């Protein structure tokens, strides 16, 4: 961004600490009156060097590290990492474990969307929304806690399976939680889409058309809200997603409201997927008996090679590029997070809007600085 200011222009720094932000980053805005003329983002306030750390950890030790890329999407981060190693080492996963993985990953999607929506409500001045969604999110987290033993950083997946089977009473509890969540989602829909103030602030604001979204490299709900049905679960099916019935939720308008509606629909789909998994759950082991890997082998060597494995994160396309040199540690890991390109697309998106809309637009993109910085 050009730092020189003309007459009646000024530069405003949002952050690195600001209530509208999901983590520390700095948004520099050049304003003319209330209109945003130009903007740019500075990252690096929470750079953890996870790619370098992973090079110095054995494969099994890497699992808790990838949890911490972003705690909201810990389960899908693990799936991308573990899936990449499984492809490299050619490890097979029993069907039962695949179903359990789909269940926990969709639960992860539910809680991520719930928190994202609550935060978004807060950004547009509707603070009660955060209280509503955080209550439901806590129910989802307790379901995940039942399975994995942790609320947010789970360390649950293993190469060739999962750590534990589903516990007793999980199905019954999930039925109760989902019934209440479905009611709540109907309420959220009313609170959002039938509210005059919300309509003024979110309909037709922050419009991203499908051509621009493709050029900017956006993925996930923000892209699907523009009408592009891009979903890794359909395009490049992993686990048992190809046997499951679900639709890719899209909208056409590409504005803030469309992005929120796509997330609301996706939450319904996620619950539908979990119910299918619970109904179709096969019997059998969670690890293959002759598997060399799994819980019993802390040190494993992975054959030489490289792989790029993608999964559908709650925010979009999550990919791990992993190079192995045949030792017990990865030679190079590149984490391609969905938020990195989404945050990059924010400055062009807010150009020409007013400063009051910046928080609403940024909130609707559902960013996470921790993941962008890694």
């Amino acid at each position, binding site marked *: 961004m050009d730092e020189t200011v003309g007459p009646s222009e000024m530069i405003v720094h949002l952050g690195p600490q600001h209530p509208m932000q999901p983590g520390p980053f700095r948004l520099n805005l050049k304003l003319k009156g209330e209109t945003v003329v130009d903007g740019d983002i500075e990252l690096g306030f929470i750079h953890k060097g996870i790619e370098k750390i992973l090079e110095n950890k054995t494969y099994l030790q890497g699992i808790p590290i990838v949890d911490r890329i972003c705690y909201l999407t810990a389960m899908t981060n693990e799936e991308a990492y573990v899936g990449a190693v499984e492809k490299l080492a050619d490890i097979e996963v029993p069907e039962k474990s695949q179903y359990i993985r789909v269940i926990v990953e969709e639960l992860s999607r539910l809680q991520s969307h719930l928190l994202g929506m609550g935060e978004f409500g807060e950004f547009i001045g509707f603070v009660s929304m955060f209280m509503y969604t955080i209550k439901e999110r806590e129910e989802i987290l307790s379901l995940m806690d039942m399975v994995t033993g942790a609320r947010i950083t789970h360390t649950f997946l293993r190469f060739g399976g999962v750590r534990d089977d589903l516990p007793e009473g999980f199905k019954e509890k999930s039925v109760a939680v989902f019934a209440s969540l479905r009611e709540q989602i109907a309420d959220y829909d009313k609170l959002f889409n039938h509210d005059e103030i919300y309509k003024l602030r979110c309909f037709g604001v922050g419009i991203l058309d499908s051509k621009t979204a493709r050029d900017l490299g956006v993925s996930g709900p923000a892209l699907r809200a523009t009408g592009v049905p*891009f979903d890794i679960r359909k395009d490049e099916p992993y686990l048992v997603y190809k046997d499951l019935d679900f639709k890719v939720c899209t909208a056409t308008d590409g504005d803030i409201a469309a992005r929120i509606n796509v997330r609301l629909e996706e939450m319904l789909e996620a619950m539908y997927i979990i119910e299918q998994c619970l109904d179709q759950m096969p019997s059998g082991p969670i690890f293959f008996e002759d598997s060399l890997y799994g819980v019993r082998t802390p040190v494993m060597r992975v054959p030489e090679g490289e792989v790029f494995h993608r999964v559908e994160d709650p925010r979009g396309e999550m990919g791990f*590029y992993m190079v192995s040199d045949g030792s017990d540690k990865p030679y*190079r890991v590149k984490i391609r997070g969905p938020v990195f390109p989404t945050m990059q697309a924010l400055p062009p998106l807010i150009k020409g809007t007013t400063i009051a809309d910046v928080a609403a637009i940024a909130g609707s993109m559902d960013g996470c600085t921790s993941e962008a910085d890694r």
Partner: protein
Amino acid sequence: MDAKTIIDSLVNKFQDSLVDAKVDSDIRVSAYLEPEKIVEVCQYMKDELLFDHLSSETAVDYPKRNEIVVVYHIGSYDHSVLMTIKVKLPRDAPEIESIVPVHWNANWYERETYELFGVKFNNHPDLKPLVLPDELMGDWPLRKDYEGFPNRTARNLV
């Protein structure tokens, strides 16, 4: 569009500069490329083969071979084939043309690769550090010979 058609089309068009072009699976193709051709190939792939989504761009350091390999993962919003292009650069002076004119979102990936590996991207609109502080420029932390702690402790930075 399937993997075989894509690789055939590329090999036909860029016979001299593509090395080791192969189909890895139904949805993955890969090739090594001469550094001079990178913008041209990306443009051709975007226009003719619908590769309009730059999924990631990074580098891998190979000190033993004295090489830094820049890796491009280019996918598509319309079909599910993902192409991996690898470009070998000399380790002491890695330089390559920026692909920002073709893929807008390469901007941050190239800034990141620059600060972590020291790969210089020519004609990049704004090549400056992204996630690292200015003091760490020139250390290239993701290279294999980076010593890390304790040569750059917090005390040394003050």
